[in-house]
């Protein structure tokens, strides 16, 4: 449970608070994301994982400190935070349904030399469908668009919110593979309900409950602690049970 003495974390969050509609959804959240690998942000439904991500990039009003690569960003507006090197893959994809696939991707390009080729190699399906309205894509294809939008640019960190939500097992595996590939070059903060995927990808874990951080540490150690996962996630992370369940049902 002790974080190894590492170089400077890529993302440091200190006493982050956020409110939506008068209700506190993120409460005094503090954690760090190391400069390499995948860190999982876990917790039951509605504990504030999405809100934490949105607060980091200023999509909801927040107080506290957020430091990206040593630079304080909590006072910046969203578009500046993103431009300073954050790739964001939102929960529920949020592709622009009335724009074509190609337009969705072009809109996301912010580097001078966006990595179109990489994206085309990763998602050949999207090339074939570049003229299709994104709203008419399947859920899995939309997730590809959403991931591709983040991978087009050079980022200091990726914030990925439930990329496997509602996807068939085969696509889940594809997404996981893509993330593993991406994680070789960029650190990722990953919100994920599928504990099998977490086990496969994540090194560190941060667990939220009721808008607060209740556990941080090594991902595998956490998942192996059946009693702890049962208490914090309401599900036992028995590796065998998970494999057959596909998506870990953390309700």
């Amino acid at each position: 449970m002790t974080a190894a003495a590492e170089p400077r974390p890529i993302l440091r969050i200190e006493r982050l608070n956020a409110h939506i509609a008068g209700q506190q959804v993120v409460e005094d959240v503090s954690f760090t994301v190391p400069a390499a690998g995948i860190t999982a942000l876990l917790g039951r439904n509605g504990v504030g994982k999405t809100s934490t991500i949105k607060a980091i990039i200023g999509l909801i009003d927040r107080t506290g400190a957020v430091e990206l690569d040593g630079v304080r960003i909590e006072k910046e507006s969203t578009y500046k935070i993103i431009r300073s090197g954050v790739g964001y893959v939102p929960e529920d994809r949020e592709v622009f349904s009335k724009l074509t696939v190609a337009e969705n991707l072009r809109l996301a390009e912010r580097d001078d030399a966006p990595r179109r080729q990489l994206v085309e190699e990763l998602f050949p399906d999207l090339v074939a469908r570049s003229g299709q309205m994104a709203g008419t894509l399947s859920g899995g294809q939309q997730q590809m668009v959403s991931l591709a939008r983040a991978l087009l640019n050079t980022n200091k960190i990726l914030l990925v919110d439930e990329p496997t939500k509602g996807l068939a097992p085969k696509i889940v595996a594809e997404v996981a593979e893509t993330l593993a590939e991406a994680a070789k070059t960029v650190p990722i903060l990953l919100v994920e309900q599928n504990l099998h995927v977490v086990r496969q990808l994540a090194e560190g874990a941060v667990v939220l409950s009721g808008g607060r951080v209740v556990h941080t540490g090594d991902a595998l150690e956490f998942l192996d602690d059946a009693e702890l996962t049962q208490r914090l996630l309401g599900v036992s992370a028995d590796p065998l049970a998970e494999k057959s369940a596909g998506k870990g049902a953390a309700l």
Partner: protein
Amino acid sequence: MSTVVLLLFTGLGLGALYFLVAAGLSLIYGLMGVLNFAHGAFLTLGAFAGWEVARRTGSDDWGIFLLSLLVGAAAGAAFAAFTEFVLIRRLYQRHIEQLLITLGLSLAAVALFDGIWGTDPVFIQGPAWFKDTTEIFGARVPNDRFVCIIAAVLVLLAMVFFLKNTRYGMIIRAGVENRSMVTALGIDVRKAFTLVFTIGGAAAGLGGVLASHYFGYVSPMLGGSLLIFAFIVTVIGGLGSLTGAAIAAVAVAVLQQFANFYLGGTGDFVVVLALALVLLFRPSGLLGRTS
């Protein structure tokens, strides 16, 4: 038959004016959530600017008319850009307060126009051709109708081209759908705000010059009276939809003309009825996002 054709073209001409106002309103609302009560003032300023051009040059030939269109559009655009940049922007995301600001602005602007140009309508002369008529299927249609229709069609095409083929157009379309995701891609959506205001203001200013020829006069009330119908058009067409605004503008204006003629001057009433029906059966408008 000839009456029908005449009513149709008169309706289309009026629909062109509605569209020029509604296009900007709808885009501004769709992208920013701001109901812009000052839009009528943009139109009125454009109309007076165009009239000043005609008055000062003392000429009523085509060149001057085109110049007055240009000046009217520029005046509307400048006023609109000022509104967005100086007043609206300070209240980012506070939609009702933004609406209140535009309301105060429209009160103040109309009063100022009253002070500068007087409350009485001032009459305007276009090229002589405008008052001639062209015979279509036995109907003698005044030529200024065609000018309005052609101008509105050109504006619609230009807007569609801009929205479909430029990066800013793409940003605006995306922003109408999901503004916060646009910012989450690292795009400063506020630039697009200024842009839609400017474009909307230009269309309204242009519409003002055309309206002054259509009605034959300019008055400080001109914009306010067209604005209410433009509101109806945007609701019927679906807030945020340019195509919806175009279709609804034509439908509303033609309906209005026919009802005025055949149902004893009940045009305005029928339009409100149509609005009620649309709301009952399709609250998000013809082409609006279904909520």
